[in-house]
């Protein structure tokens, strides 16, 4: 149990952070300490810190669900099969090598990218890189593992189907992003159908077409011997080619008619709620930071309006937050997430909308902006407290299409925000008359509050 738990909106969404605990702090000149090179076609970013023995790796390449045009399940099937054996080793032999040194290596598939995550001791990094390259380049793609993966993914879909949070998020994202937009997820029904018809041949073809170094980024942070790492990368990835560029939305998502939708699930004691809209903004767009600061005043942390009033004063919810999402690769959205007891749903939603309207109508105050700036800059310093935090920040900066010098500029950019910029962005990108409201839970069974 904890006093405060936000799972669906990251407090530091979009906020990069400077290095702190256990790492070397370069404060205002972080970019200067980055070593960046194209190695075997891969954009390799290395950042040495003074932590002993530990190395963290994150990376990505554009091979997410949005690229699986013929069958939505194929990208996830491909990513799932990467660690299920290669041309020369079965999955148990690979796992045995990693487990014996306590190294971690994994892959996950999102809307846009295949993500890579790894961690090892310094001495074991060559082993991890070798296995990573082998799994990315030469997956076995056996029929046996393909069949197993389909069953496992089907089970995962069934678990999602009973989660109010997952169902509300799915409906919300489908309501705000139009057909063909990279941020629009497939429905659970579409997933079931696609999974049933996906073939191993499609998986192999997907791998052939989209896996390659040309748009891959690999970030390595920690106790680094850079010359040695680069030598290993050249050797492990030598001769690899291919890869496809990111698929961008043909045009930003536009606001449509208001939506008020309920996804009923039986037997649930709390209702998950999303309220929000598409913004049409990518992270790197000029108004993005101002809107982020405004959204933070509305719903980020204990001192935000939503938490301070809807939760603390009125006691209507345990979890409520607002923020900007899904704008790394394409235009994204602003959203409020909240949970309410079925009997308090109407009251909670009304209070949320009341605060939303006040925020939009009157804007935020100079005092609120001043406090939020120090919070954002402080959080920027505190939350990059680990090699994982630094690595994630470096990767997101590149994924957002920003230069690495942006990381050093960030505190100044926050500090330079004006009240007019923030309140202007709120007015431009939020339209209370066209809200998308999604509720998931046992809503029909709710009885009026006493």
């Amino acid at each position: 149990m904890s006093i405060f738990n936000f799972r669906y909106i990251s407090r530091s969404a979009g906020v990069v952070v400077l290095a702190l605990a256990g790492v070397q702090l370069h404060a205002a000149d972080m970019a200067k300490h980055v070593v960046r090179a194209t190695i075997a076609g891969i954009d390799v970013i290395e950042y040495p810190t003074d932590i002993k023995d530990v190395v963290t790796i994150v990376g990505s390449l554009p091979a997410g669900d949005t690229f699986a045009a013929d069958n939505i399940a194929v990208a996830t099937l491909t990513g799932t099969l990467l660690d299920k054996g290669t041309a020369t080793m079965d999955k148990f032999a690979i796992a045995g090598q990693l487990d014996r040194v306590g190294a971690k290596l994994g892959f996950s598939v999102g809307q846009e990218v295949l993500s890579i995550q790894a961690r090892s001791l310094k001495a074991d990094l060559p082993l991890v890189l070798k296995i990573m390259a082998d799994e990315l380049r030469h997956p076995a793609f056996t029929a046996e593992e393909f069949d197993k993966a389909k069953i496992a993914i089907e089970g995962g879909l069934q678990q999602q189907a009973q989660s109010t949070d997952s169902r509300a998020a799915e409906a919300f994202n489908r309501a705000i992003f139009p057909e063909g937009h990279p941020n629009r997820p497939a429905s659970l029904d579409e997933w079931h159908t696609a999974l049933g018809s996906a073939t191993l041949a499609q998986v192999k073809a997907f791998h052939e077409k989209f896996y390659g170094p040309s748009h891959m980024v690999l970030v390595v942070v920690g106790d680094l011997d850079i010359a040695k790492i680069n030598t290993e990368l050249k050797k492990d990835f030598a001769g690899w080619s291919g890869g496809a560029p990111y698929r961008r939305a043909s045009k930003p998502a536009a606001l449509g008619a208001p939506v008020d939708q309920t996804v009923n699930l039986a037997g649930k004691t709390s209702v998950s709620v999303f309220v929000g809209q598409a913004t049409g903004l990518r992270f790197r767009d000029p108004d993005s930071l101002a809107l982020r600061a405004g959204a933070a005043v509305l719903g980020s942390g204990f001192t935000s309006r939503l938490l301070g009033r809807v939760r603390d004063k009125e006691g209507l919810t345990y979890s409520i937050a607002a923020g900007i999402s899904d704008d790394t690769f394409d235009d994204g959205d602003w959203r409020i997430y909240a949970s309410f007891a079925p009997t308090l749903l109407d009251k909670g939603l009304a209070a949320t909308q009341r605060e939303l309207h006040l925020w939009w109508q009157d804007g935020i105050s100079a005092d609120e902006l001043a406090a939020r700036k120090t919070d954002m800059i402080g959080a920027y310093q505190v939350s990059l407290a680990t090699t994982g935090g630094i690595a994630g920040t470096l990767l997101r900066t590149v994924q957002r299409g920003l230069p690495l010098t942006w990381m050093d500029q960030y505190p100044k950019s926050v500090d330079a925000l004006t009240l007019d910029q923030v309140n202007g962005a709120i007015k431009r990108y939020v339209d209370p008359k066209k809200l998308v409201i999604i509720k998931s839970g046992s809503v029909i069974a709710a009885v009026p509050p006493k």
Partner: protein
Amino acid sequence: MKSIGPFSLTLLALIASQGSSAAQVAVPGFTFVQSVGGIDEYTLDANGLQVLVKPDHSAPVASFNVTYHVGSRNEVTGTTGSTHLLEHLMFKGSEHFNDPAGNSIKQYLGARGASFNATTSYDRTNYFATLGAKDLEGYVAIEADRMRNLWLHDADKQAEMTVVRNEYERGKNDPNSLLHEDVQATAFMAYPYHHPVIGWKSDIEKVSVQELRAFYDTYYWPNNATVTVVGDIEAAAALNLVKRYYGGFPKSPHPIPEVITEEPVQTGPRRVIDNKPGKVGSVLILYKVPGTLDADIPALDVLGDVLYSGKNSRLYRALIDKNLALRVGAGVENLRAASLFELSASLSPGVTHDAVEKVMLEELEKIKTDGVTADEVLQVVRQHRAAQAYGRDGKASVVAQLSEWIGIGDWTQYIRYEDKLAKVTPAEVQRVAKAYLDHRQSTTGWYVPEAAP
């Protein structure tokens, strides 16, 4: 420790291998107790407050944590959930730091980008923040004030009760969370690990602010707390800060109550079935094992990882790789008075509970009969060693792990436990499997989904 996720030993001993250590310092008003792995322990003479200090100058940041030696095991029927509700009310203001004064903990930390929170578990409650070292003193002042000068207003309690009730309701949305609660309540019949940390819903709704005040006045005293400081501050400066803000409080005017209830011996297997709308069924088996400081716990920890810690573990091969289960789990739920060894699985589509439970028990039986290999044990130990190094990555995680061991009753195990783990032999793993994972000592639960009405 269920409340904050699986108890991980991944961060152990990290201080020891970091080289730099907090040299023992002489600060008037403190008695030095011991130094283990670079962490120094002192007692504040004025009131018995235990203080752990570890300077770490790698960055201008500090993590500060206060752990109260009170958890849901200290509650009784009618006031279950009080520890947790009180944890929430600790953010409503204290005599010198509150919203009207403009200097509440939320206002202070919120304006500085600090990472802060509080958690409650069966054995302890902790409050913590990671922030710029220059801002540490202000936080210590606020944290100390709410140790003895907390506001407890009925209006705040009424508003926060519904917040906590929604936290309870959110938890019950997950059928597996509900199953764990029901199975644990069946495994423990007398000991207060019987009730969930968050409490029973009716108690959450009905506990009075007077009862919460009595609970606070019973347990929130310096001699029932441990303060931990890890970060960019010298030991003497840290101790002086603690003395400045905590030194004025007296010891509790009464002995801190002990839990006297003992769990009766279980005389046969117990079973629970939960029916609720849903799609994915699950099986959970709990065995009672000794408290976490018992000498047999390291071998049970190794047993848990041999059963499930990756693709080469036994339950992965027997259940996940055969598409019988979507997820499995195995390991010790670490508790102070009596722990639980847990086996769990979420069923793959079309697979029966019987089939999965049978395989889980067969795998356990194989270990009881044939033991485990030296290679399996060595692999687990090496994984833990690597995880130790990963645990150096962040001060906040260091104080969090220390807090868990403080709650268990011996913070030095944060350093020493890894050596115990490294000495575990295959024979010991087989012995503890036979000794504790006895069917007659088990409580088995099934979550059987039912169709929505």
